C-alpha cells in the first residue's frame, strides 16, 4: 500500500475549492488583460480592461475565502508577519508561505491595474489613473510584473497540494501545470461570456476563441498525463470521482466546448456562451475532483 494512504486529510473543502477556482480566474483574467494590452489591437482594449476589472475584486474575495477557512481567522496575518518578533514570515520552501506573499503581491499589482482600468474608461472621473495601464511606461511596468504574479497565483495552488503527503496530490508533479492551464481556459471563458454580443468586444473575442482552443487541447493532454503519472494510485478514481473527472471535466468541460468552438464560425451563435459555461463548470469540477477525492481517501 502506498505510504500516502497513511496520512490524515487536512479538511480542505468548499472554501478552498472555491479559492482555487476564483484565484485561477483572477490570475488568468489579469494575464489575458496584459496580453491584450501588450500584444493585441487597439480594439481589444475594452476586453483587456474587463480583465483588470475582474481580477482585483476576485483577489479580495480570495483573501476572504482563505481567511474564513482558517481555524483562527483573526490570526491570518501570521502568514506574513512573525507574531513574536514582528519580522516578515517567509519560507521559500513552503508553497503556502510563498503563496501568501504571492497573493499579497498580486493583490497590490492587480489593484494598481484596477485603478488604471477605471482611469481608462471613456468618461472617467479620474483620467490621470490611465498612467497605470499600458501603453504608458508605468502601466507597462505594472502589467509585466503583475502578469508574473498572476501566473504564479494561477499555478501555485497545484504545487501547494503536491507539497504534502496526501494521496493523489503528492503522487504527481503535474497538478500545478494542470491548474495553471485550467486557469487560462476558465478565465478566457469568463471574458468570452462577459463580452459576448457586445460590439466593443467583437475582435477580442475572436482572439480569445483561438487562445481557448489551444489551451483546451493543452489541458486535455495535461489531464491524460496527470492520470498516467499517478500510476497505480489512479485506481482511487475508479468510482464516482473518476466518472466526474472523465465526463464532467474532460468530456463536458473540454471536448464538447472544443467541438462547439469548431462549429461556432459566427461568434454571435449560442454555441459560444454554452461552450464558455461548460469550460467554467469543467474548471470548477476539476478542482472539486482533485480536492475532494483525495480528502475521501
Amino acid at each position, binding site marked *: 500500500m502506498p505510504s500516502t494512504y497513511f496520512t490524515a486529510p487536512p479538511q480542505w473543502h468548499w472554501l478552498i475549492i472555491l479559492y482555487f477556482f476564483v484565484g485561477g480566474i483572477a490570475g488568468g483574467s489579469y494575464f489575458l488583460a496584459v496580453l491584450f494590452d501588450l500584444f493585441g*489591437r487597439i480594439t481589444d482594449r475594452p476586453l483587456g480592461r474587463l480583465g483588470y476589472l475582474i481580477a482585483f475584486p476576485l483577489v479580495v474575495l480570495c483573501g476572504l475565502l482563505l481567511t474564513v477557512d482558517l*481555524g483562527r481567522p483573526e490570526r491570518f496575518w501570521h502568514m506574513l508577519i512573525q507574531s513574536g518578533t514582528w519580522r516578515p514570515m517567509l519560507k521559500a520552501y513552503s508553497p503556502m508561505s510563498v503563496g501568501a506573499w504571492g497573493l499579497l503581491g498580486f493583490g497590490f499589482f492587480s489593484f494598481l491595474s484596477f485603478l488604471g482600468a477605471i482611469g481608462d474608461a471613456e468618461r472617467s472621473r479620474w483620467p490621470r489613473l490611465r498612467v497605470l495601464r499600458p501603453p504608458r511606461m508605468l502601466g507597462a511596468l505594472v502589467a509585466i510584473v503583475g502578469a508574473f504574479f498572476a*501566473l504564479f497565483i494561477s499555478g501555485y495552488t497545484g504545487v501547494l497540494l503536491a507539497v504534502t*503527503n496526501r494521496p493523489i496530490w*503528492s503522487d504527481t508533479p503535474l497538478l*500545478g501545470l494542470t491548474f495553471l*492551464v485550467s486557469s487560462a481556459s476558465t478565465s478566457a471563458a469568463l471574458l468570452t461570456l462577459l463580452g459576448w454580443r457586445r460590439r466593443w468586444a467583437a475582435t477580442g473575442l475572436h482572439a480569445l476563441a483561438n487562445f481557448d482552443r489551444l489551451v483546451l487541447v493543452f489541458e486535455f493532454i495535461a489531464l491524460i498525463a496527470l492520470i498516467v503519472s499517478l500510476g497505480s494510485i489512479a485506481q482511487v478514481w475508479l468510482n464516482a470521482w473518476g466518472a466526474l473527472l472523465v465526463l464532467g471535466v474532460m468530456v463536458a468541460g473540454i471536448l464538447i466546448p472544443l467541438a462547439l468552438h469548431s462549429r461556432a464560425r459566427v461568434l454571435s451563435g449560442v454555441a459560444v456562451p454554452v461552450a464558455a459555461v461548460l469550460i467554467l463548470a469543467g474548471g470548477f469540477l476539476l478542482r472539486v475532483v482533485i480536492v475532494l477525492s483525495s480528502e475521501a481517501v
Partner: protein
Amino acid sequence: MAEPMGFFTDTTVCIGCKACEVACKEWNQLPATNGGRNTLSGNSYDNTRRLDGIHWRHVKFIEQFTPDRAEGRWLLMSDVCKHCVRAGCLEVCPTGAIFRTEFDTVVIQSDVCNGCRDCIAGCPFGVIDMNPVSGTAQKCTLCYDRMRASLEPACAKACPTDSINFGTIRELRAMAEKRVGQLQAAGEKRAYLYGADEKMLGGLNSFFLLVDRPEVYGLPPDPQIPSRNLKPSSAWSLLAAVAVGFMGIVSFRNRGGRPHA
C-alpha cells in the same frame, strides 16, 4: 543544545491499558471527544480510534485472528508523534508555529498557529489534527514543558510495563537494539526497529519495536518529506506558464492586423 531526546516504544510489552492516553490527556488538559459524549467504535476495545488534535497518544488494538478464530494474537501499540529529524509538518508550516526544540523534538505553538491545516497534509504519519476547542493544529509535544523541568513525559511516566521508554536517542537506540537481539534469541525472528536509524526521514526521535509489517500497525512503509515534490512540481508549472504565455502571444498578435502600440 541538549542531547536529542525521544521515545522508544516496545510494542511487545504493551498491554493496552491506555494509562499513557489518560496521562497525556490529563497533563496536557486535552478536552474529551464530543464534549464527553463519545460513542463506542463497536468493533474493538479501541474507542479512541486515531491520533488527532485531542488525542496525542493512541493505543492501537490490532486483532489478528483466523476466520474460525481458533488462533489469533493481539498487537498493541501506543502510537504518538514521531518527532522526525526531517519533519514534514515543520517544513510546510507557513506561520512558523512549528519549531524544533533544544531537545530535537518538534512542537506546535498553539498561540502562533492559525489553523491553516497545511501541517496535517504534510505529516507522513497522519499524526496532526485540529483541536476543535483551540481552533489550532495540535499533536504530542513530547511534554516540552515537563522536559524543560527535567521531568519525563507524562505517558512514559505512567506506562506500567515500560513499553514507552524516554531518554536520549543514543541510549534509547542501544536499549532497542539489545531488546531486538533478546527477542530474536528467544525465537521472535520478526522483531525489528521502525525509524531508529537515519534512513527514515533522518531518523524518528520516537521510534518503535514491531513484530509485523509497518502497514499492519497503520504505519507507512516508506514515509517521505513533502518537499520532495517542490522542484518537479514547480518546474512543470513554469513550463505550463511559458506554454500558455506563448499561446496567448500567438493568438493575440498573429491576426493579420497591426498591434495598437
